[in-house]
């Protein structure tokens, strides 16, 4: 069609569309004036128009852009679906991803399952999905996880379900047999859930241990009723999709008729439950084979290994029940769940497990001895079932025993170490890194107070800011049992914190909570979070820990804000920068802390922070600030004796400034006592002990510091140093090499390595390493440079050492840190007079590295010299 002709069509089409449908024929007849081709063209377009109502009305853009997104992380904490706010991902399975969310209308936690969009891509499956979901939603039974709602989100359907806290049966079994009582109790509860579903004609189709949740109270909840049907999609699908669809389920618990893709009835569920019972009884999957077809073949054709062959202790009566439930031919199985329940109760009684407990909200409501009676009672209770919040079918067993044997085994007691991941900032407007980071650190500090818990230090935790690593990877790298992650949202003077605790090995959500508070109450909130976590992971807090975490009192939001900024600048300077820029950040940090103290003079945390920044600044070659560090630390401790930062800063300061070894020892001890996971204190104490010649203790402390702060470069460097001072050079070399494997181009590591080689008499290697270090440092007048001169002096290159000395001596006039190493060069050259000159001068200016004389075995030759003895006496310890 020519464009001119099309314009004509287009205009007439407009005119026709403006008219009522009934008038269009007449209009066209007239307007086309005998041009039948034109009229046919327009009529066909009008017809297309009528039928194209929904055509391309849903933009492809949305689904396409979504398709670009990595679907394994398609929702994150803080996102909303309708009135559900996502807290976190709980897990993902064949049937989509599951999230923990908060129903903001009813303010309760729910689980949301987001189904893969392919499952409901076309209208047919969408309708079917809704039908199945509606049917499943009619199930109302204490052992069935209730479906609250279904909906659509970004092209995918989601199901909102009751959030059940607990372990999946899979985790509970953990490949080890459960005790028979637990097997009975769990099986009865699952059977009862199935019974309720079968009455409504719903076949579960995917009974397996991962679909069965055991709550901490021993209550069973069965998940995903009827959902399996959605993924089978027998009809109207290309063969490849059906294939993948079926792959979703694990075939290991399929019934033979399911494996053969025959029609299913409720007896298929009975078979699957039989296999689940087998797994509980033995810890093994009866038909697990290497590949899917082999597994399916086994399900259809092979007998399983008798239960008593795997678990000799299992009661014979119960074995018979399981065998009957798992017959290949449906006609030979129990024909209904009721039959199964009856058989199980009699078998349990025969095996000597009697006594029935019906629990009402945890309180024993009735104890019956006869199973039949119990069932009758249950029927009677049916009418008031809704009033009984938890009818636990903890049949035939003593509840306490059950808990001990089943629940505690899989409890969270194994959490001994924890990492707090950087909290996300969801505040509106500009990002406030200092706020979220500060809250992260505050949580770390509070949790560090718990003696039984190893908490990873800030420096290591913060490296995961914005990371794309999975929780499992992070847990591995930090070697922790659990992780705390969450978000903060600040609106004016309100702050909202969402945190959740995730167990690393199971990826299970142990606990999640939302807090919303006034910014004034932020301190008590932090303590509350830490206390709650301790409770969740069943750590009993010592009285002093409890007091430490009960810091109350409100805080002036402005002061708090300045405090967080001070902390932020301190960390910025300490972790990311060097030299002048680092100093600038420290100065800014001091400024913010001062502001905080100005608006809240008794703000102990700000004073402690201030002392910490001062002592760091002082150790950067500005020893005058040790005085400020000492003053602010003392003031902070007066106000609050439980602040580890203040004790740590004071310890380091009085050691460096006053050479007060016993005082420093006490303060380090106190810092570690109030905050056992405070790696900085362990780190500082290690250096202190090493300098004091207490090498074994030093090594223990630095290794602890590394466990707490596995990614810290400073700690890694000082491990080697502590070994060097202990004269364990081979260990030091190993440490350096490990560190260099992780982090190349660390000047500190190369120089440490060089020192080790020098001590071992491997001079060419020593020279090479130290030179590499010097190249990285790029500035004259460093300690590694002195080490190079010592190496030369020892290896017959005295002239080179002498030449270097000239420059170094000049530099030492300004940089007193060079005096002790220069003395070491002189003694290596055999020049005692110049050695003592340098040392005397170091003493006169109280050079800081007089405290690390043990770094230099060169002085061994003058150790008996009265002048040297006198010197050491003055320094201590």
């Amino acid at each position: 069609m020519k464009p001119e002709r099309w314009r004509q069509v287009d205009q007439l089409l407009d005119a026709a569309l403006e008219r009522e449908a009934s008038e269009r024929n007449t209009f066209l007849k007239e307007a086309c004036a005998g041009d039948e081709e034109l009229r046919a063209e327009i009529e066909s377009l009008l017809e297309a128009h009528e039928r194209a109502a929904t055509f391309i009305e849903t933009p492809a853009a949305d689904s396409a852009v979504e398709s670009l997104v990595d679907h394994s992380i398609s929702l994150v904490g803080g996102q909303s679906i309708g009135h559900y706010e996502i807290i976190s991902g709980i897990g993902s399975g064949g049937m989509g991803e599951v999230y923990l969310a908060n129903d903001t209308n009813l303010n309760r936690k729910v689980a949301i399952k987001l189904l893969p969009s392919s499952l409901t891509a076309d209208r047919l499956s969408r309708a079917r999905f809704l039908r199945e979901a509606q049917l499943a939603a009619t199930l109302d039974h204490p052992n069935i996880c209730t479906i609250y709602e279904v909906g659509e989100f970004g092209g995918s359907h989601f199901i909102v379900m009751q959030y059940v806290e607990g372990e999946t049966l899979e985790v509970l079994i953990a490949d080890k047999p459960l005790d028979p009582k637990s097997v009975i109790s769990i099986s009865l509860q699952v059977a009862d859930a199935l019974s309720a579903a079968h009455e409504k004609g719903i076949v579960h189709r995917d009974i397996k241990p991962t679909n069965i949740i055991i709550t901490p109270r021993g209550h069973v909840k069965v998940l995903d009723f009827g959902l399996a049907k959605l993924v089978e999609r027998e009809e109207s699908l290309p063969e490849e999709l059906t294939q993948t669809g079926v792959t979703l389920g694990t075939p290991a618990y399929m019934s033979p008729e399911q494996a053969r893709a025959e029609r299913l009835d409720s007896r298929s569920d009975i078979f699957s439950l039989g296999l689940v019972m087998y797994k509980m009884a033995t810890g093994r999957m009866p038909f697990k084979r290497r590949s899917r077809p082999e597994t399916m073949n086994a399900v259809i054709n092979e007998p399983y290994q008798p239960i008593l062959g795997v678990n000799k202790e299992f009661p014979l009566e119960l074995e018979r029940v399981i065998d009957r439930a798992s017959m290949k031919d449906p006609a030979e199985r129990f024909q209904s769940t009721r039959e199964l329940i009856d058989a199980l109760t009699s078998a349990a009684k025969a095996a000597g497990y009697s006594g029935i407990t019906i629990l009402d909200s945890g309180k024993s409501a009735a104890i019956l001895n006869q199973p039949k009676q119990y069932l009758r009672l249950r029927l009677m209770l049916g009418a008031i079932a809704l009033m009984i919040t938890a009818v636990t079918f903890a049949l035939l067993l003593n509840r306490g025993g059950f808990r001990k044997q089943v629940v505690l085994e899989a409890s969270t007691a194994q959490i001994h170490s924890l990492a707090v991941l950087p909290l996300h900032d969801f505040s509106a407007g500009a990002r406030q890194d200092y706020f979220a980071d500060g809250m992260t650190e505050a949580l770390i500090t509070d949790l560090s107070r718990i003696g039984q818990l190893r908490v990873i230090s800030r420096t290591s935790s913060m490296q995961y800011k914005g990371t794309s690593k999975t929780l499992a990877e992070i847990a591995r790298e930090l070697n922790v049992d659990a992780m705390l992650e969450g978000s903060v949202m600040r609106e004016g003077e309100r702050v909202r914190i969402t945190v959740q605790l995730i167990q690393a090995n199971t990826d299970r959500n142990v606990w999640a909570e939302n807090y919303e508070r006034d910014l004034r109450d932020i301190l008590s909130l932090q303590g509350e979070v830490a206390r709650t976590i301790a409770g969740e992971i069943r750590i009993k807090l010592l009285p002093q820990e409890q007091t430490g975490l009960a810091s109350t009192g409100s805080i002036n939001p402005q002061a708090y804000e300045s405090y967080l900024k001070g902390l932020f600048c301190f960390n910025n300077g300490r972790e990311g920068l060097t030299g002048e820029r680092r100093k600038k950040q420290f100065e800014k940090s001091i400024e913010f802390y001062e502001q905080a103290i100005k608006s809240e003079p008794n703000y102990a945390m700000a004073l402690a922070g201030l002392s910490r920044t001062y002592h760091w600044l002082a150790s950067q070659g500005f020893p005058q600030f040790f005085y400020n560090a000492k003053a602010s630390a003392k003031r902070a401790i007066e106000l609050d004796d439980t602040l580890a930062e203040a004790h740590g800063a004071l310890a380091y300061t009085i050691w460096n400034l006053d050479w007060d070894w016993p005082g420093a020892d006490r303060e380090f001890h106190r810092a570690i006592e109030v905050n056992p996971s405070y790696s900085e204190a362990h780190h500082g104490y290690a250096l202190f002990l090493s300098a004091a010649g207490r090498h074994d203790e030093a090594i223990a402390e630095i290794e602890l510091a590394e466990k707490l702060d596995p990614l810290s470069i400073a700690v890694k460097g000082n491990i080697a140093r502590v070994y060097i001072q202990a004269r364990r050079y081979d260990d030091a070399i190993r440490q350096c090499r490990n560190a260099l494997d992780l982090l190349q181009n660390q000047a500190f590591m190369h120089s440490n390595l060089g020192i080790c080689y020098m001590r071992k008499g491997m001079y060419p290697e020593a020279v090479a390493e130290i030179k590499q270090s010097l190249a990285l440092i790029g500035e004259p007048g460093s300690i590694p440079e002195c080490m190079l001169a010592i190496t030369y002096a020892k290896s017959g290159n005295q002239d080179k050492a002498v030449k270097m000395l000239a420059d170094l001596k000049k530099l030492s006039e300004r940089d007193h840190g060079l005096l002790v190493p220069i003395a070491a060069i002189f003694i290596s050259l055999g020049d005692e007079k110049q050695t003592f000159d340098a040392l005397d001068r170091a003493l006169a200016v109280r050079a800081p590295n007089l405290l690390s004389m043990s770094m230099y075995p060169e002085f061994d030759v003058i150790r008996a010299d009265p002048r040297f003895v006198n010197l050491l006496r003055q320094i201590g310890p």
Partner: protein
Amino acid sequence: MPLVYDELRRIASGYMKRERSGHTLQTTAIVNEAYVRLVGQKAVQWRDRTHFFAVAASVMRHLLVDHARARRRIRRGAGAHRISLDEVAIVSVQKSEEVLALDAALNKLDEIDPRKVKIVELRYFSGLSAKETADALDVSEITVKREWLKAKAWLYRELTQGTIDEA
């Protein structure tokens, strides 16, 4: 194209992570960001807003078509061995076919009525509303709506013709 794709993918993922309350992706914002990043850097001067949106929409269209082609390749190549569900789940197969057929029809329509193609690109591929489309093209909203209906009719006829004949 791969560059645009990667960039869009990166940005879209970023949006998904950052998005707080919005439950739909802000497609326009993503396209905007992608294009400003990619082309803006090379100092392309936008003549005006209209020009920008037109380019962005056609980027989106190309992107989707590319993606749909890739999907189809995966499906065809998958006859012998199974594909993972994840791959299938990314974009529904139907949508891919729809996109490809539509793309071909749009090429045809472009020969006789480029303005309608622009409107379809903006609305269908970029997800703009009628109002936004009108603003982007600097025409009235009524015009957009009218043109949209006619474009739909034409495209629908184009896409269904074959099947009607067969039937």
